[in-house]
């Protein structure tokens, strides 16, 4: 299953890159995808950490939601930077995280970092360390909407 979705996304990647549909290039593409999947399998069997993120509708919905958050946070941060008196109050705190899977934690940590004004500096068992440029940033994370969204994805 994991390799199936990998194969599909890689094939898509190939077609987007290539843009040529001659039989030669398509067959070469198939061989290439197979080679990469095989290498991926080799890597998986050495590090035993296969990825299991499948592209799904929910994921795209989440990304859309995240994008909106990012826009809002960006505007806020841009104002702070351009403001003559530089009104930032950096904080560095602990944020409890209930997500348990590696993928969920990764997605959450990256989403936090992606949102300007908040930055994940460390990922531990039950909590993250978050550096934030404003108190509002950390407050909104504490409210836990983002975590809830990720949980909805089933991670």
């Amino acid at each position, binding site marked *: 299953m994991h390799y199936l979705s990998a194969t599909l996304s890689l094939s898509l*990647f190939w*077609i*987007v*890159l290539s*843009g040529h549909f001659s039989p030669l290039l398509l067959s070469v593409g198939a061989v290439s995808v197979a080679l990469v999947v095989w290498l991926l399998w080799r890597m998986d069997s050495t590090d035993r950490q296969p990825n299991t993120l499948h592209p799904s509708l929910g994921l795209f919905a989440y990304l859309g939601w995240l*994008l909106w958050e*990012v*826009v809002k946070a*960006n505007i806020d*941060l*841009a104002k702070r*930077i*351009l403001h003559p008196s*530089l009104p*930032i*109050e*950096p*904080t*560095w705190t602990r944020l409890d995280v209930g997500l348990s899977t590696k993928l969920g934690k990764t997605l959450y*940590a*990256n*989403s936090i*970092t*992606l*949102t*300007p*004004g*908040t*930055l*994940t*500096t*460390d990922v531990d068992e039950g909590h993250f*360390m978050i*550096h934030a*440029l404003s108190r509002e940033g950390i407050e909104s994370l504490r409210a836990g909407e983002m975590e809830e969204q990720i949980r909805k994805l089933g991670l």
Partner: protein
Amino acid sequence: MSLLVELLSGALLLVGGVLCVTGGIGLVRLPDFFSRVHASGLTETLAAPLLLCGLMLRMDWSLDLLKVLLILAFILATNPTASHSMAKAALHGGRRPLIADDADAAGENASSKS
């Protein structure tokens, strides 16, 4: 229609450019490493999508449009990871963030800056 697209892409490019420069200013202006990471994130998370979307609107319809999307996806996937890793590396290397109303940390930062 084409005028509208033109205007829209112009607006996106302009806003993206402004944000990009803002991020750059932040990169120079902000006091310590950890806050600079935020500034860098600013240029990359919103400016890059805006600029690339503006570009996409100007391009003719082809698979190249999807390539722009790929670039965007790649930037959005790698940048937070890189930022996070850098922050983590900095912590690992003994840096501590500068925290508001923390005079000691501020003093330390100032001395290391000189």
